[in-house]
Structure formats: C-alpha cells, structure tokens
C-alpha cells in the first residue's frame, strides 16, 4: 500500500482526494458516505452572502406584499416560528458535520459586502470549520474599472479576512487575470495559505426558441484539466502556498497528473455528481494501484515532480498556440 497521505493548509489528509464545494455537503448522510468512500476532506457548499440577503429580502417582500390593505385579508400567509434565513443553517451544518465525521471540513464563503465577508468568515471559524476557502469572483462589466483596481479588491479582501481568522485560509481563483503568477503571489502575500485553481464560472446560454438567456449547468470533463494543470505546474515552487487543483478531475490519471504538476490535493465535484459517491473508492484504489505498479512510495514523492521547475522542458508549459514542439537547440555549442 503506497503512502497516500498529504498535507493541505496545514491539515493532515489521509489522501489527496477532496470533495469540492457542491450540494453533496448539504446532507450529513452524504458527507458520511464520502468519508466512508475514502475521501480525504470535504469543502462545504458555499455560503453566499448575496443569496442570504436575497432570501431574507425576498421572504419579507412576499410575506409583506398586499398585507394590511384589504379588511378581509390582512395577511396571506401563516406566521411561522422560524424561517431559518440567515447563515444559521450553514453554521449548524458545519457543527453537525464536525460531530459526524473525522475528516477535515473546509468552509466555503462568497460574500458581497466587506462587513459580510468578515462576519461570516468568523462565524464559520466559530462553528468549527478546519479551514476556510474564499470563493471570490467579480464579473467585471464596468469599462472604467481597471485590472489593478480589480485585483486590489481580491487582495485587500483576503488580507482583511486573514486578519480576523485563526484557521487557515485558501482562495479559490478564477483564471481570468492578466498574470496568474502575479495575482497568485499577491494573494499569498495577503495571507492566503492555499490557492485553489480554478473556479468554473457557469456561463449563461442563449435559448433560441424563446430568445432568453438561461443559466446552464454543464458538469466538467477531463478536458478542463489542462488549464489548471498548466498553471499549477508553473506556480509550484514559486509561491509559498499549497496548491489545489479543481475542475476536470475525472480519473486516477487526472489525479496523478494534478499531483505531479504540483497540487497537494485534487478537488472533485462533477465526477461524484455524475458517477455517485462510491466512485471515490475506485479513484483512490486506482491511485494506489498505479503508484504500486510504477513504484512510487508516497504521494509526497510525486507532488510537483512534473512541475515546470522539475521537468526537462519547462518551456512546454509556456506553449500556448502551436502544437508542434520547437526543437530545442543550444546556441552556445558550435
């Protein structure tokens, strides 16, 4: 049995397979099943501040609408004890999970107001999460906001939150930056203990029959592995933070590639949603078998072994457009 252990954000994981943020963590039962299937850690579904605000305002709107206007129908809904709109359900879920499983539970947060980010981050820590993953994204549409300003938003936020937290902090990045190494480095300087690459944005689709824009969830495929693979490989060893690969991990091969590129852990959601939780068992078994066959003793051994720093042809990671390798030459030789 190969040594599958790894560390991520200072946490000891029994293997590098992490269930990433998805609805699977909404139920204690499914998280238990993930643990039974061998998963090393779980990232909770995201707490969306905007959604919480929206739910609260929406509930109030519909409960208030048309009330106290007509003598026969002063209200339209019964007055219930509790509506559970607020972060309480999420925080209780963290507590429940911590009581039910032994594997690390990482909270995931998406805020919209700086007060909200810090407040919820602290609450997630207080609820017992082992670490916090910041799900920060802005879809910029304002032509006057330049990239510097935008990037500062990310880094300032990370720094502010880090100041208020004792548990480790990771930032789930998106790839739409001018220089990924630069923003990665700045995020680490701001306090990120880990970077999760990359966040998949749900791109809207156009539905032609009714000519409307529709949100369209398409689960990932292995093809999506390439992007984070490249950048993790480039960043490994260049920045002082753990790297996690997410998007496109669907097979043991994908996992291995990710680890070799430099990821401490691989994060999986789509694969479980498509193939069920038990597919985790196969992945871990597969990883172990491959390692034994190829005589790798430990996961630690392979992490970063094919990063840009470690490979013979580092330029290959910078290849963007043409497929054929340029034959290398050394002009110092005659």
């Amino acid at each position, binding site marked *: 049995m190969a040594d599958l252990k790894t560390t991520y954000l200072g946490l000891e994981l029994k293997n590098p397979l992490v269930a990433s943020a998805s609805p699977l963590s909404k139920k204690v039962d499914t998280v238990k099943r993930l643990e039974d299937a061998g998963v090393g850690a779980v990232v909770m579904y995201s707490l969306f501040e905007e959604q919480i605000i929206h739910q609260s305002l929406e509930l109030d709107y*519909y409960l208030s609408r048309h009330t106290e*206007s007509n003598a026969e129908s002063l209200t*339209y*809904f019964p007055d219930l004890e*509790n509506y559970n709109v607020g972060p309480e359900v999420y925080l209780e879920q963290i507590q429940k999970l911590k009581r039910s499983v032994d594997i690390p539970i990482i909270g995931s947060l998406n805020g919209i107001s700086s007060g909200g980010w810090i407040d919820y981050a602290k609450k997630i820590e207080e609820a017992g999460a082992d670490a916090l993953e910041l799900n920060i994204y802005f879809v910029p549409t304002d032509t006057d906001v330049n990239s510097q300003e935008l990037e500062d938003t990310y880094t300032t936020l990370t720094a502010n939150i880090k100041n208020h937290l004792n548990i480790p902090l990771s930032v789930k990045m998106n790839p739409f930056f001018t220089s990924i190494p630069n923003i990665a480095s700045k995020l680490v300087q701001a306090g990120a203990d880990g970077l999760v690459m990359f966040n998949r944005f749900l791109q809207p689709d156009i539905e032609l029959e009714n000519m409307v824009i529709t949100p369209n969830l398409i689960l990932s495929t292995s093809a999506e592995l390439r992007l984070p693979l490249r950048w993790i490989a480039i960043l490994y060893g260049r920045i002082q933070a753990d790297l996690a690969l997410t998007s496109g991990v669907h097979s043991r091969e994908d996992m291995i590639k990710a680890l070799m590129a430099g990821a401490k852990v691989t994060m999986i959601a789509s694969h479980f949603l498509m193939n069920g939780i038990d597919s985790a068992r196969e992945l871990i078994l597969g990883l172990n078998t491959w390692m034994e066959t190829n005589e790798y003793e430990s996961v630690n051994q392979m992490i970063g072994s094919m990063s840009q720093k470690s490979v013979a042809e580092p330029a290959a990671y910078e290849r963007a457009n043409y497929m054929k390798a340029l034959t290398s030459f050394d002009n110092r030789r005659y």
Partner: protein
Amino acid sequence: MTREMITIGGNEAAAYIAYRLNEVIAIYPITPSSDMGEFADEWAAKGKKNIWGTVPTVMEMQSEGGAAGALHGAMTSGSLTTTFTASQGLLLMIPNMYKIAGELTPTVINVSARSLATHALSIFGDQSDIYSTRGTGFALIASRSVQEAHDMALIAQASTLESRIPFLHFFDGFRTSHEVNKIELLNEDDMRQMIDDRFIMEHRARALTPDRPTLRGTAQNPDTFFQARETANVYYKMCPEIVEKAMDKFASITGRQYKLFRYVGAPDAERVIISMGSGAETVEETVLYLNQKGEKVGAITVTLYRPFSMAHLLEVLPPSVNKIAILDRTKEPGALGEPLYQDVITAIEEGLSTGLAKFEKHPKLIGGRYGLSSKEFTPAMVKAIFEELVKSEPLNHFTIGIEDDVNHTSLPYDSAFSIVHPKTVSCVFFGLGADGTVGANKNSIKIIGEETPNHAQGYFVYDSKKSGTVTISHLRFGPHPIRAPYVIGRGEANFVACHQFTFLEKLDMLKFAREGGVFLLNSIYGPDQVWDHLPVEVQADIINKKLKFHVIDAYDVANKTKMGSRINTIMQTCFFAISGILPRQEAIEQIKYSIQKTYGKRGDAVVQQNFAAVDSTLENLYEVKVPARVTSSMKRKPAVSDTAPDFVRNVLGPMIIHEGDSLPVSALPIDGVFPTNTSRWDKRNIGLEIPVWESDLCIQCGKCSFVCPHAVIRQKIYHPKYLETAPVTFKSIPAKFKELPDQIYTIQVSPEDCTGCALCVEACPAKDKTRVGRKAINMAQQQPLREEESINWEFFINLPEVDRSAISPKTIKNSQLLQPLFEFSGACAGCGETPYVKLVSQLFGDRAIIANATGCSSIYGGNLPTTPWASNIDGRGPAWSNSLFEDNAEFGLGMRLTINKQRDFASELLKELSSQIGENLVSELLQADQTEEIGIITQRQRVRILREALKGIKDLRARHLDSLADSLVKKSVWIMGGDGWAYDIGYGGLDHVLASGLNVNVLVLDTGVYSNTGGQASKATPRAAVAKFAANGKGLPRKDLGRLAMTYGYVYVASVAMGANDQQTLRAILEAEAYEGPSLVIAYSHCIAHGFDLKKGLDQQKLAVLSGIWPLYRFNPDQIDKGENPLSLDYKEPSITVDEYAYNETRFRMLTQSNEERAEVLMNLANIDVKRTWRIYQSMSQQDYSLPKQDEDKKET
C-alpha cells in the same frame, strides 16, 4: 403571578382565553372572525398548551355547518370545545346550536358580530347575526371593548361549565375585533382560579361513550316532546346568578367588576339609554361627560342578554327614570321593534305589573337603530338621543347616524360635538395599501402602549379594492385609558399624515385636522416647491387651521435604502420625531427594537435595511414655511368625470372619495339593485408603469389582450375612415384578419385604469430581431403618458365594435376583438382569475346571467362603489348576482330553471297566438338555430318584430308573451366562484347541480386557497404548500374535482390554464358553453397567496402543466354518443419535477425554510402523485367507448 399590560387586538384577546380553555377547536374562516381561528392554529403549530397542559387540536372544516357539527360531536363525546365565527357562518351553525342547547352541553362560541347579508353582503359589524340565534337557547353575553373581549371569554367559560347552558360570547365585528388597545393580560393562574375542574369531570362523565352507553338525538312524539322541552327551565333560571357569581369572583381576582346590567350615571337620572356592545361604551363615556355638565342622564350596558334577567335590569334602573331609549344594532323589518327594545319593554311591563319595578312614573320607552354595518356611533349621536328624550313625545323607532329623508326616522345630531379628553392625542394616517402604513402604526401603538406610561388605541379603515387601496389609521394615545370606540372625528386630530401624494387630488384629509395641529406629507417636492403643487382646498386648510406643515420624500429615502415601496418605518420615524411622544433618540431606539422584533425572524438583511431607512429619515424631514395666502389655482379633482351618469356622480362619486356617509336614504336603491357599467368612471391611476405598443413589431396575435386581468389593453379593427378624426399620437397599422379585409388595427391601453402588472408584456411573443429585449409592447412610466394616452383611449373606446357575426371566436386573436364586458375591477394587479372571467364576458356577455359565489370574484365583481360588469352599446351585458357562499351552484340552477320555464311558457303562448302573430314568424322563432352568433342576432331581430306584432293583439296572453319574449333568445347561465366554494362549502350543491343534467356552465377559479379571506387552505390546496391551517405544509394531495365530476358521464369537464395553453382554454370554454348539459371548467388561477411576482404567472402556469401538477384536459360527453372516448388529454407526461415549478413560489419555498425535512418528504410524494395521476388519466383516455353492436336476433324477438 403578575399580569402584563400589552397592546393587542380584540380577536387575539378573545382567542387567547378560548385557546387555553379548550381541547378541540373546529373552525371555518369568515371575516371578521378568521384570525381567531388562525391564532389558534398558529399556537397549536408552535406547541402552545392549554391550562391543563395539552395542545388543543385545531381542525378546519368545509363550512361553518361542518364546524358546528364537528364541535357538537366533539363535545357530546366529552371534550371542551370552541369555535369562532360571525354572520353567515353563525347562521349555518344555528341548527346545531339548538341541539347543543337542547342537550345542555357546555361550550363557548366566540363571535365577532357582523351584519347578515340582506339587500347586500357586509363584512362589517353589527349585531344582526347574534340576534338571529335568540331562539336557540344559547346564553348570549356581550363585550364592549378589547379588555372585555378578553375577560368575558373567561367569565363565559366558567359560567357555561357550571350552568351547562352553552354560551355565545360576542363583541362588535371590526370595532372591537380589530381594534388594538392596551389591556391587562390574564395569566394562567387567573384562569385556573375561575375554572372549577369539578365541572369538567362532570362534563366528561356525561359524555357519549361505549363504556357507559347512552342514547341521544332521539326522535320524540307529541306525547312527550313538550314536557321534555320544559325540563330545562330551572337551568335557565339559575344561569344569571351563576354568571353574576362568576363576575364577582373575577372581580375579586382582577379588580374589574362586571355586572349583568351595569348602570353608570346620575343616581337620580331621568333619561337613560340602554345598549349592548361597543356602542354602550360610547354611551357611558358621553353620560359621564354630560353628568359633569349637570345633566341627569344615565347609561345601562347590557352584558348578559340571554337568559334575560328582568330582576337584574330593574335593580339598576334608578326609580327617577322616566324616559328610556333602547338601542339595537340590528334591524328586524316587520317587527314591532328591534329585539332589545322588545325585551326591555317586556321587562318593564312585567316589572310594573308584578311590582318588582319601582319607578316613580311609568317611563316612556323608545327604541332606535344605530351602527348597522359598522356605521359610526359617536358621542354626538348619544347627545342627540338624550336631547330627543327631553321631548314630551320623543320619536320612537328612530335611526341615528344616517339621514333618512324617506321615512324620516333619523335624528339630527351635531357632528362637531366631541368629548375627547384634552390630554388625548389623536392622529390620522392615510396610507396606500402597499406601503406598510398600517403595520407601522400597529408597531407605534405597541411602542407607545408598552414602552411609555401612556394608553394607546388603534383602529384601521380599509377600502374595498384588493390592491392600490387607501388605508386610514386612527391612533389615539394619552395618560387615560382610551374608551372611544369610534373613529377620530372632524377637527379632532392633532396630527394628520398623508403617505401618498396623489391622495391630495381627490381626498379631503385635512378635515380631520384640529387648529394648530400638524400635517405630514410624503412628497416628491421639497419644502420650497411643495406649496405650489397643492390644491386650493389643501392650502386653505393649512392656512386657516394654522397647521404646522412637514414634508419628506419618503420614496426617495426608501429607494436609496432599497426599501422599494415600503415607506412604513420612514414615516413612523417622522411621526415620532414630530409628535414628540418620546425623545427622538429614544424613539429611534424603540422603532429599531420593534423592527428587530417584527422582522428579525425574516433575516438580518431585512432588519438592517429598515435600520438604514430609519437612520436616513430625519435628515430628509423638513418643515415648510407656510405662506400667508392661498396661491394655488388647482382645485381638487371630482371623484368622477362630469360626463358620468347622474347616479355615478351623485351616489358612487361620494363613495369613491370616502364621503358615502353623507348620502341620505333616498340616494340608495330600495332593493339593493345597482346599475352596471360603473367601474369605467373610477380612474384610479395606480399603475406606475403602463405598456406602450410598438406597432412595427406587432403580429396581431391578441395574446396581450387575452391575459390582461383588467381589460385595460385591447385591440380593435375598424374602417380606415375613422382615422380621419384620430388624435395626433393615436397608433394604427393595417389589420391582418382574413375575414375582414382592408381594415385598420390598433392596440390601445387605458393609462388611468392599468395597474402596471406587465402580464401583457410577458405574454407578447413578438421580439425585435435587432434587440431582443424590445417587444411589441414594453412597460414605460405612466405619468408622462397619462394625458395623451387618455385622449387616445377615449377615441379608441368610441370606435365601433366588430360585427360579432363576421368572425369566428375560436382563435385567440379573433376572440380578443370581442368587447370585454368585465373591465377595471378592483382585483389585484396580475390577478389570475379575472382573465377567465373577462373571456366569458367577451364570448357570451351580452346574454349571460351569472351566479357568483362569495369570494374574491364577488368582491372584485360586486363590492361597491363600482362594479366591473359592463354592458354594450345595445345596453346588453352580463347580469350578475351574489347570493351566498354555500348556495352558489343552486342559485345558478334556479336561474336556469327560470330561463327554461319562461322560454317554454313563451313557446306555448307563441303557439296559442300563432294565428294572430303570423305562422311564419312563430315557426322561425320556435325553430331558431342559436348555436352561432348570427343565430342569436337574428333571433333578437325576430323578437323585436314579435313585440311589434303583439302591440296590436288585445289578449292578456299577448301581454304575458310580450313580458317573456326575451326568453326566446338563448341565454348563457354561468356559475362562478373560487375553490373555497367549489371544493368545500358549496360542494354539496355543486354536486347536485352537476348531477341534474341541466344546462349550466360552472367556472371554478382555482387559486388553491381561500384567497379572499387571506389564504386559508381548501381541499384544492396542493400537497406541500403552506397556507393558513396548513402551516406545516398541506400533507394530503388536492382533491380531483374534475375526475369526480367525470364519473357522472354526462358532465362536460375541462381543466385549463391559460398561461400554459391559451388556445386550449378558449376551446374548452367554447365547448363547455355549447354543451347542452352541465359543464365544469376548472381554471388555474395564480394568486398573491402563492407568493411570487405575478408578472411571472403565465410562466408558472406553464411549469405547473409541465410538471404534471396541473393536468390539462377536456372530457366531452358528446363524444360518447359517437362511440369515442370523451377524455382528451391536452398535456404531456410530466417532464420536469414538481420542485422546478413549486420552489419559485413562497408558499412552497417557506416550508423548506421552516421545516426542510418535511418539505422534502412532501415534495417527494408530490412528485409521485403527478406521475400516478398521469398514468390514471392516460389509461382513462384510452378506454374503449365503442358502441355495442346491435344483436340482430334479440332485436327481432
């Protein structure tokens, strides 16, 4: 245990006790008692226990009759039971009340007394309902105030248990039931002290049980019934003393002493008024005031009305009394006098003849009526009655509070007379239904009542529309208890607030203001500009009354703090700041505290948003420097246009601007019959946005018009010559209707009637190919378009209507050329019911007679002042009536019986007089084919000719035939109502009517809930939805009314949803009407009780059908005769989950928030339901209906 002082409404005060002293509660909602049952249901859902430590069982029944039956069964088998009802509901309980009393079973029924429906229905308060129960044998005990409604509920309970006489405890509907006042809350110790558990054990020991079997409800014969009936006498004799004993015990516990008859006034009074209910408090307060002026007057409050104890009444009447006026809050036409009057006369006469009465002189007794349907009863009126009593011949059978210029019964009174305590502060607030004014005022009363040493009172007046309504809040507070069950009068208010600027256009609000008072106006114009935008009358009032004038742009503050249209906490902050009732900072703290209490459980975001609004308020509040003179030239607008018919201008107009109290008796119709065609005169201007037609994109599909709930967007086609006089901005394009070539087409909106719901835009399929967001209609701000589009609308409405015989109504676009005869109702913006009603009026309106059940449709259809039912240029249109709730199907059947009988009789007369009329004409009349429009039009022409011919015939039969001739033209009978009627209270009648086989058309406007009374569950409520009485989600699936009707085999049944399939809806309604037999159309109606943006109503209907939760089908019995299966499924196998439909709506989503586990369980079951239903319908639609082959051998033998 100490007692809390709290501010609370009358209903809650009564229910608070009733809940804690009972075990089984069976209810049915009816205004104004519904919330008593709702409180009970909420408390039970929260696990609150009664004083014996168990949670009462609360069950909603199908009608009050059902509730009474359930209660009877529950109490006869040993439990403590109660119910809450009023008016029509109480009437339905009467048969059981006789039984319950006859069986000497203790119970207390709590009633918020309400008018009975006579010439009209009224939701408001008087005592006609309780008086109608006099014969039942129930004890009747009356409360005058919120504190009494609380206390008396306990006294009644103690009394019924000891006396075994069942009690009806009542208080005035709305006046007490909905008044908020500060009271002392009884605690459980008080209740335990009052209730002797021994009586409960005896009650249980008497119960019907197989362990000690007995027989009850026997049938008795002449030999013994009479004697058996007389056995109860001793119980009735003892009852008054038992009540008195309970009252004394109560006084020893709380210090509040009640009496069966309570006297207040001069010990040597000569004139006394006797009354019962809230009015008695007004009489008493006025007497105290007049006593201080030296007047020898007194007031008697009747508390225990039945059993009527003559001795106790005579005991409290001072011997000096020589004139007594007895007031009744009811009318009993045909009686010598109203009930209380008659009882008092009897008591006094018997008292005198037995020597029990000790009067110095035989008193003169007069009776009067007051306060019917919450008509105000004020100290000024009390004073007028005392003045009348001074006369040597005071008027008997008088009325007070109205002007009776027909029968001359009314007493005049000085409306300026006021007994308001100088330290009491009176405030009147005018709000718009949507802005939260009432809620804020209720919170303000709580703050003042509970956080300051003051007493506080709130009373709220609403109008009759379902949206865009005016609310008027009357608040009083001060150091003395507020005993004033009447609204704030002219010139009494220290503070008047107008929360909606447009009200200034029509409403006289400052009539309430006293000199030196304050006027707060929500205005988009700042302190330096607002003066110039005020009408003359308002400027004059401000100057003449020396008012301090403040303005705030509350909508701007609300906008900046994202509050939308809810300006409640903003205006509340202004009120506290200006009134100075609390120091500003403390007031803000209290407001924030109450925001947290009220909204906290809806999430922190709401709380913070309101806090931000409160914090931004004061910097936006300005005092206006009032000029010395009136500068405006703008007068207040009349209620209706000068061109409106007399009746509309003179009678409905004052009602529209809340001046209806000034109308004398002569102004009103004698039999409750009102003209139609009146809603067009009430231009409400409530739509902030209206649709604008982009004619270049329009494909003339008619869908916008089809879905419009208010008939404000219409299409017409007409001859090009009419464009010669068209207004400048009037739009038109060549028409594309193949039956009518070379015409012009216009879509026009009525800007002042549109509510801005945007359903038309949602329905419009035509998108600009270069810019998809732009459709053939798009919403735009109403204000800048109001004037020019009003002119365009005037022109449009006078264009000729299409020739109905020239087009077939079978397509959407053609159907929408037909004139709607149902327009501009008071229904909610985006209502899901009204488009179906409007469609029926378009297709059949000029020959339709409609029986309408009580519910939203009877309110938006028939609540005065105006009605949306209209007529065409020939003066024909739907004839409409609301009878009751439970009898609607039968009511409509009665109409069909008349139509058939009259037609048959007319046909018989035609035959008898054929030689005189002309054989050809008679034959044509009798054989007319009226299946199409042209047939009906032609028959009308024949009837005109017939009438001409009859003129020359000297025969009584010709006169009869003339009066019946219209019955020869086909009529369309429609029975309309909601699911509360069709599935529950009216189901028995509906079933019988459908079974009858007669030609009636039933339209069920199915919202899945009792929409009109605020969202109580019905048997049509879908599984997993939250509703009142299903607070934990409805566990059982909805009843399949359609499938039940199909089992008859001769009833046409259709299930439709116009948002999912408008063509199928149209087809089903046409088929239903054409079917010569009973038809039932069940129409999916989205509603605000579903809790989503109704603009998306059509989309939700599509999802409802796709998920299978709402099947679409038509069951046509005519197919059976052809050997074909009658059931056509017009929907497909469910292709989305029920979740995808349901979780767009608050009624489903709420359960996932309050009880996630249960939500999941129920939603799973719902998903199974729809698949099962699909399979069942599929199999039904595939059954073999082929006609049996003729057996040749059998035929020959």
